């Protein structure tokens, strides 16, 4: 990490510390208190236990999206009839306010794992599907003509030109999908039933242990940021 990045983190945490000591509100702990709470939750294992629960529907949802969503997007890009059938669904999904739909999911599927996985999928799938679809559709026409000018078959066209060209955008879609998945799982754990990290947040809020509550919130923000940062690094390495 570069110096200015470190400095910007230091500044952020420093301001947090100051604001907590001011005090802005009794419910707003300084950075040091939240940090100590984090260490304690790490030591007693409650944070790890919470993440084991939270990451399960997230991982399941993302893996399902990666397989089916990319498949769907590629199908839509390659076939006009698949596009005609499914494009409207994903355009609507992309625009729908998800928090409003989650109670509907709970009504149908109950409060178990299924609903939480579905919440992740509903948020992550549109961006994954649409990126794959666009990656396929945006193949430069001259590359396709080049393939045909050498009598390439449709299969060769797809395998050697269309898919390699789309790979970068498909990966971007996955990364953005994971970002949406983090949003989805936190909403689900707060709105459906408090479990995992959502439980840590709501429980500590109800017993007014604000340092722990803020530590839990900061930990999921940090986890999402680190995961996305690593994926972006990978993306830049693979698809420069």
């Amino acid at each position, binding site marked *: 990490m570069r110096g200015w990045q470190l400095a910007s983190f230091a500044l952020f945490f420093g301001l947090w510390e100051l604001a907590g000591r001011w005090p802005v509100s009794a419910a707003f702990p300084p950075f040091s208190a939240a940090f100590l709470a984090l260490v304690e939750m790490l030591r007693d294992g409650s944070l790890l236990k919470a993440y084991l629960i939270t990451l399960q529907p997230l991982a399941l949802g993302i893996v399902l999206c990666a397989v089916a969503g990319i498949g769907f997007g590629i199908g839509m890009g390659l076939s006009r009839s698949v596009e005609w059938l499914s494009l409207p669904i994903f355009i609507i999904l992309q625009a729908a306010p998800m928090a409003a739909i989650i109670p509907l999911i709970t009504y149908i599927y109950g409060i178990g794992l299924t609903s939480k996985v579905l919440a992740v999928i509903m948020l992550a799938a549109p961006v994954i599907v649409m990126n794959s679809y666009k990656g396929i559709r945006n193949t*430069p026409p*001259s*590359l396709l*003509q*080049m*393939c*045909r*000018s*050498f*009598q*390439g078959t449709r299969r*060769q066209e797809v395998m*050697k*030109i269309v898919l*390699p*060209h789309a790979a970068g955008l498909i990966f971007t879609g996955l990364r953005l999908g994971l970002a949406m998945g983090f949003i989805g799982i936190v909403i689900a754990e707060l709105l459906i039933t408090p479990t995992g990290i959502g439980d840590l947040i709501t429980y500590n809020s109800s017993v007014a242990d604000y340092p722990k509550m803020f530590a839990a919130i900061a930990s999921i923000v940090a986890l999402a940021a680190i995961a996305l940062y690593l994926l972006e690094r990978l993306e830049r390495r693979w698809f420069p």
Partner: protein
Amino acid sequence: MIVEVKGVRKTYDSGVEALRDVDLSFPKGQLSTLLGPSGCGKTTLLKIIAGLIPKNGGEVLVNGKAVHGPGPERAFVFQDFALLPWADVLRNVGFGLELRGVERKERDEVARKYIAEVGLKGFEHRYPAQLSGGMRQRVGLARALTVDADIILMDEPFSSVDEQTRRKFQEDLLDLLRHHQKTVIFVTHSIEEAAYLSDQIALLSPRPGRVSKIVRPAVDRSKSPDEIRRDRGYLDTVDEIWGILRQYV
């Protein structure tokens, strides 16, 4: 006559009439250019000859047989190069052979040979983004040469090459194509380029493109490049073409 175009017409779906009743023949082993103002349908005609876009009427005959799509006897060099950005020069040059199912070892060998011929030896493992416009065009040319087609179709191959490299590239191209005895059809909007390179120049009128005149420059090709550019026949050809094209601008 190796390529004949008879009564070819093309109107795009948008309603633009690009070509109207074009009749042309391209003699075997010669270099012919399609010359005309921008937007007159040169690319359209070349791609119809290549079988890359459908025509609305007329015929394209290659060696006397009507063709309706791309064929192994024709290879195309694209104006925007059409290189795979994720593949190095070696794979790009061998890509035509790869599509034909030629083994890796054999196609690499052929590709290396043509990479050297177009003057890119040492750049085998570079990627298109690391090359200049002129070098990318050489990659596109090498790829067209590997498949050993008799007819090479080139769409403004020098348009993205700067002036200094252009002359050198033109000279290299002449040598290479004469050496391999290719029949070349090539699009340009530069009068000098056409007069310098061609055995036959087909002048197209503005849209809808029609053949307005065929010019055969009387240029002595045994002279050196610099002598040719001062040659009477060359200068007369440039004047004659300019006289015709002037009425279009």
